[in-house]
């Protein structure tokens, strides 16, 4: 409180520096993607017509917003956390009514002047704040199931709404709040179950169902054999193992095919199969089964991912050079300035450039975790972990997607991808954290 007059006191300048470096890298990448050799780039930078020029404007806006956040009072965020969450939810619900259709998902609200806002994107901030607020309540005991369920609800409700807007990528973002919850004491079993489920799904995709069933049975049998003494003493162990085995087989036999055939759209299933190098038979899909007359062949649409991998591979170790990326210049990668921005880096600067960016990101993540751990108030810590989880999720999924290890879902690369919405969201997320961190000596509730 004594430092109120000095805004810069306690501000983590290192994080701001890293943030600025990422922004510069991003701007460079967007510039590379759109650069044409025979144009005056200085003029087009200032002209406001090209993407990199627009990105520059977005950065300016972000700087202003960031300043405002730094000037704000930390208590503001705790005080308004729930209200903002409610506002976010209302916005998301509103999209169903006044939403605009952009690229097949009705998740945008037009703001006028050609600007749109995607509530699901913004709602991440509010959810982070709300989760922090809830977990930092004195009466919350996170070891209780009830509290856990409420926390799940806070996180999963916007996810559900996103999914209903066909924004699967954004819906999945909300799952990363579990990392923050894990830090706050969510039993590890949840992560283990989640992880095990993931492994089982992947195994189902990769291995013949019958062989997998036999393998699971053998594993169960061996486990029973190894634990035969304990089981003799306590029959419950046997039931647990048999139960787990039954669930596993059930999942791989029925749940996974059901999800792929009836929950996902054909193209989604295809993309997931594809990232494991398998073909998905679309004629099994519910959407396709519905219209029987449609004999259109469903070709796997791996063009984006293939071109993305080619562009990255084209760079080699040291890259083709700044503005010399052959794939970038030839515009072979679709959506290269947004979702596939990473490819321009790989093309131009090769492995070296990619590893540089990865290290930069890793440093940012590490820094935020350090910041999180030095907070006195639970609110700040939970919020910091939420931020780091969101960042991590975006980075990991986006890059894994461009290198063909994850199904392609429209997810931006934080602070690098072109686009005001995403840039602003991350700026707000990070600068709220910096603001909270500046007041780390305070106990915020």
């Amino acid at each position, binding site marked *: 409180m004594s430092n109120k007059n000095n805004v810069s006191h306690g501000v983590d300048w290192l994080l701001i520096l890293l943030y600025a470096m990422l922004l510069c890298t991003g701007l460079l990448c967007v510039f590379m993607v759109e650069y044409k050799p025979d144009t005056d780039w200085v003029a087009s930078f200032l002209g406001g017509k090209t993407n990199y020029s627009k990105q520059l404007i977005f950065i300016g806006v972000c700087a202003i917003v960031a300043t405002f956040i730094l000037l704000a009072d930390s208590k503001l965020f705790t005080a308004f956390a729930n209200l903002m969450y409610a506002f976010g939810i209302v916005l998301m619900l509103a999209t169903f009514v006044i939403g605009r259709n952009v690229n097949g998902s009705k998740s945008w609200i037009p703001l006028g002047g050609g600007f749109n806002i995607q509530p699901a994107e913004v709602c991440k901030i509010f959810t982070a704040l709300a989760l922090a607020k809830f977990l930092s309540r004195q009466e919350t005991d996170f070891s209780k199931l009830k509290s856990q369920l409420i926390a799940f609800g806070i996180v999963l409700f916007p996810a559900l709404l996103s999914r209903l807007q066909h924004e699967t990528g954004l819906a999945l973002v909300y799952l990363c709040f579990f990392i923050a919850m894990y830090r706050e004491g969510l039993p590890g079993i949840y992560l283990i179950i989640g992880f095990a489920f993931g492994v089982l799904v992947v195994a189902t995709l990769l291995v013949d169902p019958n062989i997998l069933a036999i393998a699971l049975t053998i594993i169960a049998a061996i486990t029973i054999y190894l634990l035969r003494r304990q089981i003799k003493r306590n029959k419950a162990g046997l039931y647990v193992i048999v139960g787990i085995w039954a669930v596993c087989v059930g999942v791989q036999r029925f749940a996974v095919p059901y999800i792929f055939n009836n929950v996902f759209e054909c193209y989604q299933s295809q993309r997931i199969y594809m990232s494991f190098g398998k073909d998905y038979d679309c004629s099994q899909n519910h959407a396709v089964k519905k219209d029987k007359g449609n004999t259109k062949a469903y070709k796997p649409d791996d063009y984006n991912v293939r071109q993305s991998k*080619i562009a990255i591979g084209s760079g080699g170790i040291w890259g083709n050079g700044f503005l010399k990326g052959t794939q970038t210049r030839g515009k072979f990668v679709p959506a290269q300035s947004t979702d596939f921005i990473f490819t321009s880096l790989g093309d131009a600067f090769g492995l070296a450039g990619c590893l540089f960016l990865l290290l930069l990101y890793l440093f940012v993540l590490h820094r935020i975790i350090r910041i999180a751990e030095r907070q006195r108030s639970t609110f700040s*810590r939970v919020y910091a972990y939420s931020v780091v989880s969101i960042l991590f999720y975006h980075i990991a999924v986006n890059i894994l997607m461009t290198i063909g290890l994850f199904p392609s879902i429209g997810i931006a690369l934080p602070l690098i991808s072109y686009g005001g919405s995403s840039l602003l969201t991350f700026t707000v997320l990070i600068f709220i954290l910096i603001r909270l961190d500046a007041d780390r000596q305070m106990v915020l509730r």
Partner: protein
Amino acid sequence: MPAFNQSRSRIIQIIFLAVFIIIAAQLVHLQVFSSKYKMAAESNAIFRKVIYPDRGIIFDRKRKALLQNNISFDLVVTPSETKGIDTFALCNLLGIDTSDYRKRMKEIIFKNTAVRPSIFEALLSDEMYAKLNENMYKFPGFILNERKARTYPYNIGANILGYIGEVDTTFLRKHKNEGYEMNDYTGMTGLERTYEKVLMGERGVKRYIKDNKSRIQGSYENGMYDTSAVAGKNLYTSIDVELQALAERLMKNKVGAIVAINPKTGGILCMVSAPTYNPNYLTGSDRKKHFAELLLDPRLPFNNRPLGNMYSPGSTFKTVSGIIGLTEGVIDERTTITCPGFFTGCGTGKPKCLDKGTFNFTNAVAHSDNTYFSTVFKRLLEQPRYGGADSALTVFNTYASSFGLGAKLGVDLPSEKKGNLPTSAYYRKKNGGKFYACNLISNAIGQGEVQTTLVQLANVMTIIANRGWYYTPHVVDSIEGGDEYKMLDAYKIKHHTDKRIPDSVYTAVQDGMQAVVDYGTAAGRSKIPGIVMCGKTGTVENSDHGVQQKDHSFFGAFAPRDNPKIAIAVMCENAGQGAWFAAPIASLLVEKYLRDSIAGTERNAQLTQLENTNLIPQKMRLAMAKRDSLKQIKESQKLQEKINKENIDSTEEEEISPEIKNTPSKEKTNPAKDSSHKKKTNTIVAAFLNNEKKKKHNIV
């Protein structure tokens, strides 16, 4: 400070790190170890433009160009980029039908995929090029590609020079590492084929950066990896343009062959295969049409007869059997043999001889006495010192093969035949294990199983002219810039005939051959005033599927007798006696070569008369007539259809009868008119061509 759960911060960091390591590993895999993506990136972004070098030029012995290069253009298409073009307009420009267009496109895609450029129309005519060039901007996916094409200023030598053609998949598979690509041209026959390596030069490659729509963005790395084209090497041949031209003139409307050799070098002076074709026929825009025409011609113009056909050499072979007989001492120059009208030695009354009487060696050659040489051959086979007819024949064949018979000579042109020197094993097999001299007596006079190519015969003349040695006949004397691939080494080795043959034997044979021209079988028309020519006629009985045909006319000669400058062999199929056609043709060519022109009105009249004689055999004429009439019928049918159609168009504009709707041929025959029908007749179109179909409908 809530210290609990702090360890989980580590776990979270480890998870983060693990994921980043996975990413880094995949990046290393993609960018360092996997060349696949690097290559895919190149094929994405780099457009390799092949710069074709000029093919080498082929010159005659006086450095006159037998063929040259000129520039023509190909219309090249990348099918995947042609979506939405105005097919109809393009077809109009090209003068083809839209169904033809679709057919070609399908073929191209099948052969060379939709994304790679393929030739749509090769070697455009100048007029077509001008028309297309103006309109190219309307047809994305189509470009005009420069290509050097051959021209032949003298219109001669098709069988020697050969032609170039597009490589096919089999060729590409065979020549995998020689840098050929689809749509490249390579020598298919003749010198173009034999000396392909030398003539082709080195292709250059220019690399450009292209974008996702295949638009050129600029040169790649400022042309650092570009290579420039190196022109093919020129060939200097021993061919004499004027001699070749005259020889081809004389062989007009005849079936046969001529080979003339410079005995001193083995260089081939002229080589005619008749009927031949104008080599300019196979360049230019109508190449395909002409090629098909020539391929189906019953006169087989693609057949290089002097090398690729084997003939019984007839009486010209008597020179060889005479030499062997003299050398082996079964006769000498003074031996006389009487012919009562036929050979009596075997009791079959065969072979007959034309002139009855008693002959010494010189006269036997001069009058081509069958009995004399049959006797020589029989004596040879029955010589007790060989220990049997089998080994006697072996002796004979040893001599004969030293004259370059029975095996490929190794001429620098493709598809040479071996000829045949039958062995005793062959006869034993044929005659149920028995071998009698009388069974093969006709070989003595070149009528039995002995077979030679005409080049071999010309080479025998060379040997007699040279008195026992020859260089392998060849067309190319030297290669510009040196013989890099050692292709000419074989033509620098002097071959000698069997060492046992004394020089006197050649004198005897030359005496006989001079007598042939002076007062023998070829006397009169074939005598060149002031030039001593030695020759030997041949009149070769032949049959087709057991039916006796008119004799082949053969003549082998060399001149002048002292210091021979030309050895020649002429053959006219089904032309009768050797003296009638082959000998005068040879004598005219010899005169032309030695004197540079034909002197005297009488000789020139003879030339004109020979030129105008049509000796195409009856069988070929029938086949040609049949072909022509078939063509005529087809054409008249087409015409009839056209007339019918026009009638329909004018009378049934509104109500189109269902039969007409279902007649697809109607549409094909008349591209200009079919637009009115197009609305009603929907042809099945390949999926990818859908766009342009739509477009066409709009125009309609």
